[in-house]
């Protein structure tokens, strides 16, 4: 019996101790006619690890590709081998929520270290232990801003159109149930940026918060100082959505404008988490100290034991669902422990200079790729704003068609902007430190062929 240890002797001994004749008898409280559907006829026969591994290996093989320049919120980075060799140690991998703090100091200390590094990377005072992903993190931040902005009675939040559309839709799906309205802020179609000018129509109205994405979905860098100061001047909180890699070289949200952002969220995947089809990733979430009691999610604190020795424990649980139930800050009851553990190890291995090198290479490679591609006839940058590590390009042909032709050459050449922005000929292209000069040239050569 796969994964079940009991021998026939064990079963008989256990039944004897229970005083039951059969296992089936243990289910005698279930009305018999309800059991009819449970023969599970549609399930296959069980197979061994060998057979299932081979099946899955064959399928994994199907999905391999030669080169990818897909970004859009998930990025390919070098992940040191140590990261997952450590994170999948059974002690991390098979532990649960550290309810028994004394027997969970490993996990608890890792989270405390994680909170510290997120706070330092974002320039904020405090961090939680992570949420599901960047997009759901934004939803939590929006809900949090309604609670935290005491001056506002609004259930409306300003959200730029230049935000990742998948963040927008996930956020909408989550917060709309509480009658929260996400109000669109257009972007400058020339610069590919959200301009303070576009915000002026909203001045004087009551919004709980302004969302600022740095970089935005087009990879463009926003004038975050001006946007932040505008929001604060208009009584709104600022919710920053950021890429963690970029924070090694970009101004951290805590230093935006004169007061800094109030809440920062983002997708943690670039910090040592594999692309892995979209998850498990983790959303990071940090805020100013004064808002900490409005922050959802697990939070770890440092304290002392009865002998005065340093230790770590779950804290501020009064915010959480298992204590506050319907009054909790959120229904979230886990974090993305394993991914967050990996990120903590990743950042420790990279350090401030290493992460800055990664960010720098991402930027430089993307610039170089954009230069090489725009050297092709009819390929142009879609916008004028400076970018971090992703760039929108317009092609002389239909974007979806071009991408499909590239895919036939086993090159995943970027994301189409046709559906989300009605930019039929535009694609979003990303390069990171994993791309060599040769990779870029192969892509450019393939693009040239496809466009020819």
């Amino acid at each position, binding site marked *: 019996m796969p994964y079940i240890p009991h021998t026939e002797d064990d079963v008989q001994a256990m039944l004897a101790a229970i005083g039951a004749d059969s296992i089936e008898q243990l289910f005698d409280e279930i009305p018999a006619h309800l059991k009819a559907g449970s023969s599970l006829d549609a399930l296959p026969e069980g197979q061994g690890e060998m057979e299932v*591994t081979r099946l899955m290996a064959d399928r994994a093989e199907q999905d391999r590709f030669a080169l990818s320049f897909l970004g859009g919120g998930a990025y390919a980075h070098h992940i040191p081998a140590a990261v997952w060799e450590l994170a999948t140690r059974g002690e991390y991998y098979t532990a649960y929520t550290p309810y028994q703090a004394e027997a969970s100091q490993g996990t608890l200390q890792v989270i405390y270290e994680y909170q510290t590094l997120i706070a330092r990377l974002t320039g904020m005072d405090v961090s939680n232990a992570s949420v599901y992903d960047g997009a759901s993190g934004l939803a939590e931040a929006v809900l949090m801003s309604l609670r935290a902005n005491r001056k506002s009675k609004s259930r409306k939040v300003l959200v730029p159109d230049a935000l990742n559309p998948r963040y927008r839709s996930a956020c909408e799906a989550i917060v709309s149930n509480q009658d929260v309205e996400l109000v669109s802020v257009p972007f400058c179609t020339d610069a590919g940026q959200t301009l303070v000018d576009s915000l002026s129509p909203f001045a004087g109205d009551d919004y709980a918060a302004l969302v600022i994405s740095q970089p935005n979905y087009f990879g463009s860098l926003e004038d975050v100082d001006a946007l932040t100061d505008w929001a604060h001047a208009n009584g709104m909180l600022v919710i920053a959505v950021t890429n963690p890699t970029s924070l090694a070289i970009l101004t951290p949200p805590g230093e935006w404008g004169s007061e800094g952002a109030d809440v920062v969220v983002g997708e943690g995947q670039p910090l040592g988490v594999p692309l892995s089809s979209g998850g498990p990733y983790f959303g990071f979430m940090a805020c100013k100290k004064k808002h900490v009691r409005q922050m959802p999610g697990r939070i770890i604190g440092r304290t002392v034991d009865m002998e005065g020795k340093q230790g770590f424990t779950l804290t501020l649980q009064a915010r959480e669902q298992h204590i506050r139930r319907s009054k909790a800050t959120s229904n979230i009851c886990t974090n993305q422990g394993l991914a967050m553990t990996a990120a903590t190890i990743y950042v420790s291995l990279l350090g401030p200079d290493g992460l800055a090198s990664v960010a720098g290479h991402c930027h430089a490679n993307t610039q170089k790729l954009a230069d090489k591609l725009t050297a092709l006839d009819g390929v142009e940058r879609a916008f004028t704003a400076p970018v971090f590590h992703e760039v929108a390009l317009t092609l002389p042909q239909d974007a979806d068609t071009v991408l499909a032709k590239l895919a036939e050459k086993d090159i995943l050449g970027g994301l189409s902007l046709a559906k989300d922005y009605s930019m039929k000929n535009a694609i979003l292209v990303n390069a990171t430190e994993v791309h060599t000069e040769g990779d870029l040239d192969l892509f450019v050569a393939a693009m040239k062929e496809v466009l020819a």
Partner: protein
Amino acid sequence: NETTLIFQHSRPGRSATAQAPKPVSEDQLSAIPTNLRRKNKPGLPEVSELEVVRHYTNLSAKNFAIDKQFYPLGSCTMKYNPRGANRAAMLPGFLNRHPLAPATHSQGYLACLYELQDFLKEVTGMKGVSLAPMAGAQGEFAGVAMIRAYHEARGDDARTEILIPEAAHGTNPATATMCGYKVREVPVGKNGDVDLEALKEACGPQTAGLMMTNPSTCGVFERQIEAIAKTVHDAGGLLYYDGANLNAILGKVRPGDMGFDVIHMNLHKTFATPHGGGGPGAGPVGVSQRLLDYLPTPMAGQDEESGDYHWIDTGTLPTSIGHLSAFMGNAGVLLRAYFYAMVLGRQGMIRVGEYSTLAANYLLKRLEAIGCQAAYPERRASHEFILAFAKQAKDNHVTALDIAKRLLDYNQHAPTIYFPLLVPECFLIEPTETETKEAMDDFIDAMEKIFNEANTDPDTVTQAPFTQPVRRLDDVKAAKELDLVWSEC
């Protein structure tokens, strides 16, 4: 030194050099406006590769884990996490697959998802399944959001209340709130079953639905489930099944057959994916016919003619409650669950319910025999059961918390304590089907020793643990003098 933080190993200029690309020149960054550039480098650890490996290897030793100990945490289903599932999910083809890769380069992955959806439908008796939710709580959210979408689509907008038995997990009421509902609690009777009369009174035109789990968090099967379903349905409400306890009934009775309209499953419980120190999980939702249109996207679909797989998204299912994440949820968890389901197959799934129930009933009877007080002694245990230590608390001033801490000294992870809230001084114990009889017997021995200590030397119990990296921690100080990030000074 034992608890040195990684930051305390930091020395300016030290680095794990092999891991970073060579620095870029300022020139290569010239396109980024100066005012957007960071002024001071972030205070991240500057350490060597060996220091990182050693630090996190040594830190890991400070955790209890299934791979090391019996971990009978009630309602958490801490069963063995097959290592083969880890290897399969970490195959390069899966690991490097971008979530937005085109369908041409996703057939392998989609095939796994599509089959997993089918397996989960069969196991739960539901008509449709979406794998999108990233955790149990998000599955709950999706479930209640679908109930809301259903009522809204029918223009039935007077339904503002969700009913929840008082023994429920905290996520249930919190989820109802997140979906904009008011919560009304329904009392539970002395035998662990819902107070049906109270439920009938609570039901009405304002009832959007009822959230419950069966077996309940009281560790017993709700025998009146059909009457409950009829009551709620008659009032126009829908029934939500919290899959927390699905392990107990796999292959015995299906939520769909009990009358539930929507269910979430915890793959990190029932399908043996690792808990990872608190996550990630995955919380797929299954629905009956009437909620099919509202399932969260994306889902895996298959073209009948070509056999090719594709994504079903809001474009093709515009009534969906939408996306709950940037991409499609916790893929790596789903692949592990798929592996597990394929290894178990039909017979294996049926055995899960059988042997987890056998283990729980055995452990309960043996613990009763050494003097433990069952909360529902006349009931069968499901895959878990409740013990109440009110007597010890009164006689010896030894609380459930004390016993839990002392168990750690015997190298046993403590069960869930003080939950459900309605049983004072309680343990919720869940051994799962993957633990040997010997492992359970060791736990029983430890409990017996602790009972003796409680009588003869209660301080040993009330001051425990003694063998862990720290003694009991000052939680009050932690909450009052918030220290959430480390600072050098």
